[in-house]
């Protein structure tokens, strides 16, 4: 009868939750979409860097700007320090992947150990960035003194503004990531995930942490290489 079709769909016609078509949990899927939107934010920042650089008749030479090294006065090691920073962030990312893998094995001690190493790597990266900023703003050798109002490398003050804005925004992501990693590490050590029966939270926070590493690849490309 035609009237039948007007009735609300019967229970077996409705999706009652359960298995996701993407085979991931809601939380993990939303982390992916959050990261996609964050990727657009960073893209917008880096593309405005490109636009302003293309608008400017002169620009700073990265080999000249980024040649300092801690503990070495008047160092002239182009790209040396930033290579170390990049390597630290890659290693930190790897440590967190190892924590995720130990989580798949339900190995609590392994998760805590690798997560702790990942936190150390993130903190080391932040320390490096703090040194680099200090060096560029207040470093005494070869006339540094780059701020958001001026720069001393023969380029418009935009260079300093964009550098501090973008590396600062990335650095804040690193900082948030370290805080989240610390929370996950403590919860794992306290047995929260063991009781829950899975270590998916390590995966979700891990995704965020790898994204921070991914963004650094492009910050490194735009500011230090191109």
């Amino acid at each position, binding site marked *: 009868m035609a009237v039948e079709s007007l009735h609300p769909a019967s229970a077996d016609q409705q999706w009652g939750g359960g298995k996701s078509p993407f085979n*991931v949990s809601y939380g993990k899927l939303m982390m*992916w979409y959050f990261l996609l939107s964050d990727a657009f934010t960073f893209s917008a920042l880096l593309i405005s860097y490109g636009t302003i*650089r293309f608008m400017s008749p002169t620009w700073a030479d990265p080999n000249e700007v980024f040649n300092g090294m801690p503990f070495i006065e008047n160092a002239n090691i182009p790209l040396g320090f930033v*290579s170390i920073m990049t390597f630290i962030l890659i290693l930190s990312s790897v440590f967190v992947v190892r924590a995720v893998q130990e989580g798949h094995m339900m190995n609590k001690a392994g998760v805590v150990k690798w997560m702790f190493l990942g936190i150390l790597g993130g903190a080391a990266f932040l320390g490096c960035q703090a040194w680099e900023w200090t060096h560029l703003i207040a470093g005494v050798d070869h006339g540094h003194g780059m701020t958001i109002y001026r720069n001393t490398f023969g380029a418009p003050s935009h260079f300093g503004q964009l550098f501090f804005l973008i590396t600062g925004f990335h650095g804040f992501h690193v900082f948030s990531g370290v805080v989240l990693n610390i929370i996950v590490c403590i919860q794992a050590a306290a047995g929260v995930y063991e009781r829950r029966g899975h270590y998916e939270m390590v995966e979700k926070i891990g995704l965020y942490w*790898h994204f921070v590493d991914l963004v650094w*690849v492009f910050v490194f490309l735009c500011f230090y290489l191109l």
Partner: protein
Amino acid sequence: MAHHHEPLDPAVYKSQVNAVWKATVWLTVITIVEVVAALIYMEMYEAGQGPRLLLNGFFVIMSLLKAFFIVGEFMHMRYEKRALVLTVLVPTVFLIWFIIAFLWEGSAWLNARTFWEVIG
């Protein structure tokens, strides 16, 4: 309520761990190659001289390769369902337009300002 996950098969675990260390070596080697290329270029040419475009193209391709290792292996995307991969990756196609349009605009500004002698 707790749906306990069984530990992974040790053989799968082992192969995944190896894949991650391999990706780490790749990322490190690519970064070293990039920095060495930048330094060789700096030694060979004055700033603003030489085949800069070629070098920049090399840097962009190498960075995309690094992104592939990070997203594919570290973020485990290579092993996700194809539909999930597409919903995340397809929107980034807009970036191609975004980059071309805005860099174009930037150089148009420079040309206009140079033509009208706003800047030297």
